């Protein structure tokens, strides 16, 4: 039987508590991984490893967090995501909410939230 969004959320919450050493109450749907939960770059690999184990899936590099785009000058210039970058991101990240970036494509506003991770897993389990 397919997992419900609540079940996915609870597992993701457990993964983030273990990977980031935060309290369960801090892991809310809108909490940002870097800003609110203090994730650093190596934590994203740790989170991906733990999610793979928890859900029995394989997460190819760049699928959940497409970090390669941010080092590409076609897609990011002067701290802002170009229209081509935004188009590429939307194609590769159906799990991300682009509402704020559509208004202002400042790279610093590209914040991954707990919901982003839950959306990704939900899509992944459906596919």
């Amino acid at each position, binding site marked *: 039987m397919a997992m419900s969004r609540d079940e996915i959320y609870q597992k993701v919450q457990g993964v983030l508590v273990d990977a980031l050493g935060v309290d369960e109450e801090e892991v809310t749907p809108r909490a940002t991984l870097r800003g609110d939960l203090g994730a650093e*770059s*190596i934590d994203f*690999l740790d989170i991906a490893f733990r999610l793979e184990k928890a859900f029995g899936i394989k997460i190819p590099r760049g699928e959940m967090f497409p970090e390669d785009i941010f080092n590409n000058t076609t897609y990011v210039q002067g701290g802002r995501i170009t229209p081509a970058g935004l188009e590429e991101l939307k194609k590769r990240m159906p799990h991300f909410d682009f509402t704020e970036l559509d208004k202002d494509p400042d790279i610093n506003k590209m914040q991954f939230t707990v919901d982003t991770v839950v959306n990704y897993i939900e899509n992944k389990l459906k596919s």
Partner: protein
Amino acid sequence: MRWIWIDKFTQFAPGKSATAIKCVTLAEEHLHDLYPDFPIVPHSLIVEGMAQTAGILVGEASQFREKVILAKVGRATFHRLARPGDTLVFEARIEQFSEQGASASGTVRIGGELLAEIELMFSHIDRNMAGMAFPEHNFVFTDQFKQVLGTCRSDAPISL
């Protein structure tokens, strides 16, 4: 010179697990620095021993092509102290491995008794997410480290 914190590998299963030992001796100067008159091995150096055991295991998994650095200590739980005369047994295993890095976990025991449980993350730094550049030569895995790996084959009689 690198401070090698393990004396010898006693088991090495490439890409999977490794066991190394470290004999603690009162001759080590640092033992006298932490608590004068009460020589113990600092927990940070026990983590370093596990990082070297697991780090060589992770490095060997890519035939030492990657520069492997300790990026995160996910957990380090200690149950007892290590003192001069003790032989620490580091047992490490690779949990997950990818082109970006690896996670490893392990235990440290003295005479079968659990001393510590440790979880580590290693990064292949040339493939780091920030796109930073590092020197081309592999400054992590020097000949000295590879010599330690050779100890797991050193039980053969030495002819003089």
